């Protein structure tokens, strides 16, 4: 799990569907969903490690990923073009 970004803008990615214990910044509602990388944000110390009083290094690449609301919420009411954008750390992407 290095600091080098391996995904590019426009890549289709899936968020890991997992439920580890601890301080997780990947909202539960988005786990297991597929979206498209909107931008790369830089690398940041891993919050899951920081919460354990460790240094969080190596820093984890962070992306903003765009998801279609219709894909995320069953029975979503609204435009098919409505989206939600969320920051996802690389180690949560598969």
């Amino acid at each position, binding site marked *: 799990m290095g600091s080098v970004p391996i995904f590019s803008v426009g890549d289709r990615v899936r968020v890991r569907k997992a439920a580890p214990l601890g301080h997780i*910044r*990947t*909202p539960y*509602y*988005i786990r297991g969903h597929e979206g498209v990388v909107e931008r790369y*944000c*830089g690398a*940041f110390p891993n*919050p899951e490690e920081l919460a354990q009083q460790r240094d969080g290094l190596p820093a984890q690449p*962070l992306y*903003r990923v765009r998801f279609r*609301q219709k894909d*995320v*919420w069953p029975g*979503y*009411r*609204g*435009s098919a*073009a*409505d*989206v*939600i*954008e*969320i*920051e*996802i*750390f690389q180690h949560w992407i598969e």
Partner: protein
Amino acid sequence: MKDLGAYRPLDYFQLMEVSLRELLVAKGVVTDDAIKGAMATMRARGPERGAAMVARAWLDPAYKDRLLANGSQAAEELGFEVPGLKLIVVENTPQQHNVIVCTLCSCYPRMLLGIPPEWYKSRPYRSRVVREPRKVLAEFGLRIPAKVPIRVHDSNADMRYLVLPMRPAGTQGWSEDRLAATVTRDCLIGVAVPRIPKQPKSRKS
């Protein structure tokens, strides 16, 4: 149940805060005055800085480009110090409306907007605006036409967000300050759009 009158015992987190603060002061890590000063500064801060950035962007297309490319640098350009802030500015257009939430807690660009409103931190807003944004915005009095896509931004990690609203019609020739006055906190979160005060109708005598 015993009537306690106006007395309210401290809850767990209040007690934790008081204990930690008193310890830090007793050990000389910080002073009472420094804490009071920081709280006063924080409480006094409103959304004026965010509003000033928007008004500048409306008047200066080159500034707007820089604002959208690097929000933090654009804030510093106006003299607003934002150490450590990673600001992403998202632009409302006739083709898209943006709204900000932090579903995990209450992340918010406090250095530019001050303390977030209570509703921003509330569970109903955080849980609902991600899954039914149109309904929530309508409850704020903002109806987004069905043909305009909504982009919800979950401020869940290291970035912070600011909405760049559209300049309201009828503001040609307005000064930067006058424009900034139309940009409320809610406009910068995306649950409102700037409106110009209605001209008072001429009274018939």
